[in-house]
């Protein structure tokens, strides 16, 4: 009985070692693809004009990070970076946002829309003029 248990455990440990080796190999080969996909997602949140630059820059950054998990973690950091960078640019445009809000409450909706148009926030999606 003890011999059977021992043999079973030995077999299990050999199988686990082989399987984890295969898994590590798989992870290693999929890693560049995963990193590229995460960077692509992060960059897609940035303004159109910045996407090319940050795709290359962040690929280069991930390339310099040692270890497969380190590369994925830094790529996930880019998701956070992209969010913050979008918020940064909104922060810079806060003055214009205030102006747009002021237009809405004090003037008229078309004036507010015009201000927003100036902010290029809606550059990718052209706004239709409202029909009054």
């Amino acid at each position, binding site marked *: 009985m003890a011999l059977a248990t021992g043999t079973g455990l030995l077999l299990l440990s050999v199988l686990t070692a082989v399987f984890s080796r295969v898994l590590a190999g798989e992870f290693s080969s999929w890693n560049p693809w995963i990193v590229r996909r995460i960077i692509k997602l992060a960059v897609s949140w940035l303004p159109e004009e910045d996407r090319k*630059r*940050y795709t*290359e*820059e*962040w*690929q*280069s*950054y991930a*390339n*310099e*990070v040692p270890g497969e998990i380190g590369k994925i973690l*830094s*790529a*996930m*950091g*880019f*998701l*956070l*970076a992209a969010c*913050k*960078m979008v918020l*940064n640019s909104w*922060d*810079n445009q806060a003055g214009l946002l205030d102006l747009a809000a002021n237009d809405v409450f004090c003037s008229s909706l078309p004036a507010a829309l015009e201000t927003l148009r100036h902010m290029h926030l809606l550059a990718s999606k052209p706004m239709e003029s409202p029909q009054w």
Partner: protein
Amino acid sequence: MVGNEPRITTQTLSVIGALMADSAGGISGAEIARQTKLASGSLYPILQRLEDADWAESRWETEDPHELGRPRRRLYQITGSGAQKARAAMREVVRPFGRLAWR
């Protein structure tokens, strides 16, 4: 684009420190992260703010990526006005501590 002045946080100061310590004419984001121990998620928004405020500027490295066998690095550098403003900001940060020390 010259925008608002960046918020001076300890993280911002450490990035500025790394930029000012660079003597090679540009330092990559990964190298700044190594020196400052900042994660990519914190580093790039700071670099963006510094660039927007004209405290820092960046350029691609000139070597051919095919020859290098890796993607090009973006190299960051502190600007002249950025260095001046950073020193002034640093003095502002240090001043209260100096006063405290003399009491």
